[in-house]
């Protein structure tokens, strides 16, 4: 993997990721653009600056592990993997089609680079705890990252894992919450209030970092801070905008799980491209 160190490079990478996300969902005719776009900056920093891995050797023992707990953001994960060199970008167009390795939600037995299958919400943090614990038992120094949705925090199992990780002092674990404040039925605070969210994670014994999840330098700083924390897990509460980067999708719950039509695609790609050409 070619590490991108400059903020401009990472910004551009995030836009390339957005471009492919929107394009592949339009081609598939279904999928989840809103939560894929909101995580594009976080994902880009993770895959092109923060994590160590070898796309030519997906099972390299010392790689950092990434678990997409919010499995519906599969287009985000697939795009990141393609750009990281796990497979050709052209395969992105097979999303959700019969015989494709790019299932509607990530299926690990089909696609190298996907650590574990996800899609049923609330399970990724527990799985990540298991991986992090194995790392501790084996005295390995890899790190484990997991991206959760904020609506996903409604699941009770997340809070079982929230108790487990500090209890086992899993300081090799970093959870990132894509806090875009929208779930399918609307505003997270109206559907099932999460706030005060930071106080909850603090109370559970996590090192909590609050950032703007679209500000590359803040994301970089947060991961750096994670490296310095000892004896407790870290959670980054990243405030984001659902559908970020496509004006008509931004902050619209309706774009959680809907594909753009031909005209919408054209406009979306135009907007993204304009930022890439800057």
């Amino acid at each position, binding site marked *: 993997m070619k590490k991108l160190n400059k903020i401009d490079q990472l910004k551009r990478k995030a836009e390339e990721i957005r471009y492919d996300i929107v394009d592949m969902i339009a081609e598939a005719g279904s999928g989840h653009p809103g939560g894929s776009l909101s995580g594009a900056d976080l994902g880009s920093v993770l895959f092109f600056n923060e994590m160590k891995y070898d796309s030519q050797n997906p099972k390299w023992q010392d790689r950092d592990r990434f678990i997409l707990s919010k499995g519906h953001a599969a287009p985000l994960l697939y795009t990141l993997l393609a750009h990281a060199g796990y497979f050709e970008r052209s395969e992105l167009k097979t999303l959700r089609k019969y015989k494709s390795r790019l299932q509607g939600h990530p*299926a690990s037995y089909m696609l190298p680079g996907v*650590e574990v*299958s996800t899609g*049923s919400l*609330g399970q990724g943090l*527990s799985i*990540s705890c*298991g991986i992090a*614990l*194995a790392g501790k038992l084996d005295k390995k120094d890899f790190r484990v990252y997991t991206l959760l949705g904020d609506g996903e925090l409604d699941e009770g199992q997340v809070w079982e894992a929230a108790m487990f990780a500090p209890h086992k002092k899993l300081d090799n674990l970093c959870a990132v919450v894509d806090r875009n404040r929208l779930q399918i039925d609307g505003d997270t605070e109206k559907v099932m209030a999460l706030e005060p969210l930071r106080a909850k994670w603090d109370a559970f014994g996590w090192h909590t970092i609050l950032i703007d999840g679209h500000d590359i330098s803040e994301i970089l700083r947060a991961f750096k801070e994670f490296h310095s924390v000892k004896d407790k897990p870290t959670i980054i509460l990243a405030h984001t905008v659902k559908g970020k980067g496509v004006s008509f999708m931004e902050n619209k719950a309706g774009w959680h799980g809907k594909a753009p039509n031909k005209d919408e695609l054209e406009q979306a790609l135009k907007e993204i491209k304009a930022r890439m050409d800057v």
Partner: protein
Amino acid sequence: MKTQDLKPIRDGYGNALLELGKTNPNVLVLDADLSTSTRTNWFAEKFPDRFIDVGIAEQNMVNIAAGLSLEGKIPFVTTYGVFVCGRAFDQLRNTVCYSQLNVKIVGSHGGISVGPDGGSHQAIEDIALMRILPNMTVEVPCDHFQAYKATMKIAELKGPAFLRLAREATVAITDENTDFEIGKAQIIIEGDDCAVFFAGTIGAEVMKAVELLHKKRIFPTIINMHTIKPIDKECVIKYAKKFGEVMTVEEHLQAGGLGSAVAEVLAENYPAKMKMLAIYDRFGESGQPDVLLDAFGLSAEKISTQIEKFI
């Protein structure tokens, strides 16, 4: 055959874990606050660093095991069958089986012979829930000798497996030298009058029923179907052909258990009439194990009467 060896089947599991602790450093054991009951405390005392008590959190436990298995560990997830199969079903389906992970699920306290704790704690649907999952192997050993061997075998197996245990001390009907192979039914007695398939500790009642029947010059063939999945199709078809009809006995719901598994094989390959001794569309309840088995038609006396009627 040892007839007087009375020991809970979970002791066989506990002993196998001790052996695996010594021989396989990748074996880890997880429990959800029931370690004294499930016998995982034996392992915990010897190998404290490889024992993880997650507290009362079965969903978390299954997925932590999933994560551990991704790193090459062989986690044995242990708690009451009713909790792991029910409460954590989605975790077993969507993470463990869908991702084909090497996680072993051990459901103790299967069946109504759990006794006084009542219907909430008696797993009578666990076999049905586990055997419908793609990639899952389902083992229902009949006594502590067989539980020991089944535990050792599933540790070697690559992929998810479910092992059903029971609470009560029951008479051993195999011994340490009895062969055990996953997916290969064990013929306990070859008789000329009928074929009876059973799974689990109910085998002790079946063997007592056989003694009663022998006095009446009735000689059933008794087959121990310790592996529900993959089921030994050849064996099922062979005995259906030989007798024209078969009978199944299990401490489980009639819907989805051993009887259903046998019926699926026969319906597709050699349609034959069946008699299923099982629990019919109801929950268990409190009571002493022997009282409950009799009330549910699964005591030696009731089984022998049914076999007599059947032939």
